[in-house]
């Protein structure tokens, strides 16, 4: 039993850290596919502040990110999750969690 568990843990993929850069008033990449348990980090390279805020059923909010600051979200459930910048509603992104 213990050996089986160890084998299962060994085969399971470790969570990955993904980075989305915010620059030029866009999310790069705007569409990102991740696995459940992965962490997505948004880093703001623009002069002006931004957020990455879940706009659908899944709620998350990095809060205000000043230039050089980063915020994160751990993908906890499957689905297509749209998000936007609270300050600039024309800025959109999508997380596809598989």
């Amino acid at each position, binding site marked *: 039993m213990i050996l089986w568990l160890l084998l299962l843990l060994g085969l399971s993929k470790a969570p990955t850290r993904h980075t989305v850069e915010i620059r*030029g*008033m*866009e999310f790069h990449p705007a569409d990102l596919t991740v696995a459940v348990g992965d962490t997505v980090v948004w880093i703001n390279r*623009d*002069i*002006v*502040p931004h957020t990455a805020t879940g706009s659908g059923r899944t709620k998350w909010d990095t809060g205000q990110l000043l*230039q050089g600051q980063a915020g994160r979200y751990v993908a906890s459930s499957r689905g297509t999750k749209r998000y936007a910048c609270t*300050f*600039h*509603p*024309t*800025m959109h992104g999508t997380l596809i969690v598989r």
Partner: protein
Amino acid sequence: MSRSSYPLLLPAVALLFGTGLLAQNPAAASAPDLSDPEVAHVAVTANSIDIDLAKFAQTRTHNAAVKQFAATMITDHSAVNAQAAALATKLGVTPADNAVSQSLQTGAKQARASLEPLRGAAFDRAYIDREVAYHQAVLDAIDKVLIPTTENAELRKLLTDVRPAVATHLEHAKQLRTQLGGTARTSK
């Protein structure tokens, strides 16, 4: 950029300056030839004008989306001005007042005066009309006057970095204007 292309810029410059500079001085049938300290002054003035109008709008509007838009204008243009001030200090440049900055100030006073008597939805529509026209004019000026005439690479980079924010503000204002409904007035 060669001076010979300036006549192509006249519509954008005329839009930026409204009925001001070029109309008052038709002999100057070319876009202004700005020094870097003057470009810096124009940039800071353009930001400050939008901050001041947004602060006024926040005291006047009751529309949550317009309030949010105004808050974003204050935050973003303040952040840009902070960078501009830091860069000016680093470069040892003292922004120099000039006819373009003065023309912008005159336009801002006129805009404020036209908004002053308005209330409610009429104010919201007129404010956002002004923001659409203003950001379009600033965008045109960045593309056709400010970036091409700036000699210092760091100042030019700052203008280039700011451009997407101005374009995003313009799209934001246009979307908001559509949501507000009514007839868009032709604003300067």
